[in-house]
């Protein structure tokens, strides 16, 4: 529908919408996060949900204790290699549509533990991440910004056509392989279908 005509009608007291808009509006204002934290970033996430920053303004105050009721996974903190299979398993147990926010330096890249042998260098090696937040830890405002970014992303999703989101594509995967504990590292060390090593050409 033409944007100008829509505004004109609205001035006359007639509200028009499309199914797509209504559907996305409903979804983006009730993103229920999974209530779990891995390290100090979780404290900031908890702060963001409390009265001072009040995540409830975005319809996301209901932290669900079960992945089966959650829409959003906030990976808040260091993902150790020992914890990574459980994080992927939790993600697999969430129903579609589902989203992931990687919160903080550790969750996006390994952070200060990047040189360590026991920390996963970013959860995006195993599951698709929608929003990355840098910071150590990020302020609650940064989490709110990530939330609003995610809401915008949901609002802009087309429900038909080839750009439609993953949960409307019948043969798109909704579960991702869980890494196994190997003798020296996780096996596999990353999931090549969601993550490729960055092509760094700084020297050239």
């Amino acid at each position, binding site marked *: 529908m033409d944007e100008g005509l829509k505004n004109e009608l609205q001035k006359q007291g007639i509200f028009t919408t499309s199914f797509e808009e209504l559907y996305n509006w409903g979804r983006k204002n009730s993103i229920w996060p999974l209530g779990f934290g891995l390290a100090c970033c979780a404290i900031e996430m908890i702060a963001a949900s409390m009265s001072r920053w009040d995540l409830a303004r975005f319809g996301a105050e209901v932290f669900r204790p079960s992945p089966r009721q959650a829409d959003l996974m906030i990976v808040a903190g260091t993902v150790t290699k*020992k914890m990574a299979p459980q994080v992927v398993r939790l993600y697999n147990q969430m129903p579609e549509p589902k989203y992931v926010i990687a919160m903080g330096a550790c969750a996006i890249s390994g952070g200060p533990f990047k040189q360590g*042998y*026991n920390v996963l260098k970013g959860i995006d090696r195993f599951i698709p991440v929608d929003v990355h937040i840098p910071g150590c830890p990020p302020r609650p405002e940064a989490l709110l910004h990530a939330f609003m970014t995610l809401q915008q992303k949901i609002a802009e999703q087309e429900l038909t056509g080839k750009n439609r989101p993953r949960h409307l594509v019948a043969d798109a995967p909704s579960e991702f392989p869980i890494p196994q504990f190997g003798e020296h*590292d996780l096996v596999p060390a990353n999931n090549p279908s969601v993550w490729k090593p*960055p*092509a*760094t050409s*700084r*020297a050239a």
Partner: protein
Amino acid sequence: MLNVEQVKSIITHALPGARVEIITNESPSAQHSILVDDDHAVAVAKLLRDHPELRLDYCSNATGVDWPEATIKTKVKKRLVVDGADKEVEETIETLRSGYLEAVYHLYSMEKKHGPVILRLRTENRTDKNHLPSLTPVWRGCEFQEREIYDLFGIVFDGHPDLRRILMWDEFKDHPMRRDYVEPDDYEYEPTPHDDVLEKATRRQKGAG
């Protein structure tokens, strides 16, 4: 507080068979430690805990140390007669030290309010003879710390009630705190790489194109 020599004499008096050695610490802290042989370690630990003058009832920390094989250079001054004149000549002696693993216990007394007394146990080598007696039956607080030593250094504690890996997963085969541990090559770049990491990062960058 008794000094290490006094603690040593208490041990040698009570347990004549025990081989006890004082390892001196040359640094300003001068925290000298006591090396005990494997066979008498538990008896020595019990003695330190129960002796009326020591009463070391609290093991605050147990940790591991990896000593890989190394050549040790020591400088010795010698007086020589060169061309009829007395001269002082410095000579370097190289000795080969075989590798071993160490478990170090820091003991305090809650009752007497003194400490630490530092106790060391040594394995014969780093590969197959890596067993030590567990001191968990003496100080229960050592349980998790000995598990951590087992996990990260690979010392097997005989007599430990529940010797499993504590930080890494059970399927893991390496001991990451050993000097010769090779970490998995699983990161591509570093914001400010240097030394080994720079070398590794450059190698990865060339590989990734």
